[in-house]
């Protein structure tokens, strides 16, 4: 800590206070607020809501979409990160730029894209219709848009780690007789595991919280294509405010837990990087 930085204790006090007020008003107070508001009607309302079949279905749907998104983005994330760092080829910077695209798009735009591709009269609509596969207004499109939005997380975490670590350990592994797969699983993967875990945690949080894109592609079929977030949206619009608050509180609780995991992983990752 710099000795010369604000030695004036009063000024430090003001700066600190400003920060605490900012974070407090924007985050802490509303968080407390929702706990109070959701629990106000009484515990029985909470349990009733959480037992409703619509709610259970919504939570299940969110869980399924999140799980698929996490697995797909983790797997392909490792592949893409590997290709970007370890291979040189024409078009590599273009590929790199593509990874950042999802961050530049509003989720509604993503939903719109899915509509253009799979919706009525869409580019790929006839292909799937003729095979009797329902994409739009059903699980597949909701999963696809979520995956799209989550693509960058794992890749952006793994790439810098792969770059920093370099090739030496992998070369050494090969000279000791390990095959390419053995080298990957025994040497490379352990070196990127915290970065991968951190990326997965971020993906999980993002997938659970997705609303903009699924709002457009789900068709909002209650009990069929409603995720937890969509349930909250519809419930609020239909004036089922207590139910909306309860499910919102549940998601908030899950998020806070995820947050703790994310913080832990972030620290682990930083410790790893200082080891190299």
């Amino acid at each position, binding site marked *: 800590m710099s000795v010369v930085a604000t030695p004036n204790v009063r000024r430090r006090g003001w700066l600190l206070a400003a920060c605490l007020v900012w974070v407090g008003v924007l985050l802490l107070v509303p968080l407390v607020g929702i706990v109070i508001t959701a629990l106000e009607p009484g515990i029985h309302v909470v349990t009733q809501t959480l037992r409703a079949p619509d709610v259970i279905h919504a939570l299940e749907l969110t869980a399924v979409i999140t799980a698929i998104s996490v697995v797909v983005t983790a797997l392909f994330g490792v592949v893409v990160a590997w290709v970007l760092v370890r291979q040189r080829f024409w078009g590599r910077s273009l590929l790199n730029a593509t990874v950042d695209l999802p961050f530049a798009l509003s989720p509604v735009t993503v939903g719109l894209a899915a509509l253009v591709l799979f919706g009525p009269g869409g580019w790929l609509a006839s292909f799937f219709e003729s095979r009797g596969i329902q994409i739009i207004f059903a699980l597949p499109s909701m999963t696809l848009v979520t995956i799209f939005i989550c693509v960058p997380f794992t890749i952006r975490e793994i790439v810098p780690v792969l770059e920093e670590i370099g090739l030496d*350990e992998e070369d050494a592994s090969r000279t000791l*007789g390990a095959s390419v797969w053995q080298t990957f699983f025994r*040497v490379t993967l352990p070196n990127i595991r915290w970065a991968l875990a951190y990326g997965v945690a971020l993906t999980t949080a993002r997938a659970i919280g997705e609303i903009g894109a699924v709002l457009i592609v789900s068709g909002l079929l209650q009990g069929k294509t409603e995720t937890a977030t969509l349930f909250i949206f519809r419930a609020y619009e239909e004036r089922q405010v207590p139910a909306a608050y309860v499910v919102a509180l549940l998601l908030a609780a899950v998020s806070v837990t995820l947050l703790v995991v994310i913080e832990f992983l972030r620290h682990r990752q930083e410790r790893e990087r200082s080891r*190299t």
Partner: protein
Amino acid sequence: MSTPIVVEGLTKRFGSFEAVTDVTFTAPAGAITALLGPSGSGKSTVLRMIAGLEEPSAGRIVMDDEELTVKSVQERRVGFVFQHYALFRHMTVAENVGFGLRVRKQDKTVREARVRELLELVHMEPFADRYPEQLSGGQRQRVALARALAPAPRVLLLDEPFGALDAKVRQDLRRWLDELHRELGVTSLLVTHDQEEALELANQIVVMHEGRVEQVGSPGEIYDRPATPFVAGFVGAANVLHGEVVGGHIHLGSIRIPGAAHLDEGASAAAFVRPHDVRVASGDGDVAAVVERVASLGWLSRVSLKLPWGETLIAHVPNDDLVGVVEGDTIHVDLRNPKAFLVGSETSTERADVSART
């Protein structure tokens, strides 16, 4: 277990740049051969090609009468020690050393015994459960060596193994590697830019420069009978004096230096004389020179001499021979063991950095 390494016509091109050109030599079985050269001479590339970490553009590599040129790294069974250790950071010392055995699916008890054996060999037994980040540089390199030796490779390749270490640690490890090699007798190929290291450790030295082999020989041969101006200048310090070839001698000013019989009459030539081969003469000697500076280095002194025709000569003279000599005095010196080379277009660039090397 030991086999010679035969390398023929090895060439490596990166795009239009040729890093290694037509390298041929044989590393004798059971001996330490050093690949010596400045950075950028291609020596590491040669080593990596032998290991299989790089594909040659042309040439062959043969070990144990087996052509290895197209074999994968794993199939070659070479032990490789990296300059920056390349220890697996997530494994303990013991796990690192046992890795080569683990991937070959060796039985656990056999593996553990072998790991222990090697850790004892490198005196790292007490550190078996430590992680690389907890070790010093010298310790890490010893573990790297144990790891490379564990799967009983047929040759050992070392890529500037001590380059990243302090001078003192380097010397200790150098001595220790020497002893280890005597004990194990594995054919070893050592890449280094440190000529002292090569001269001390190697049974045979391959001097490389700009991708080509300059000379292959024993340390004595390389030092006393350099085949090219580069070798003369790179290995051991050298003075470079310039003159003309007349009747089998190099004429430098008023003096004549023998040993130019193999050079063309009338050609420009350079004579290489080592500082310790400049002896204070009893009597007239080869040439008279003016003492410019005397710097005492302990039991000998480094003397800067100005020759009559203007060139500078650096001499390493025992202090006993310099009694009463001060700056400005004229003394007579003999130039012993001169090596004569033609001055041509390839050597002119070498002249520049070599004459600065004393």
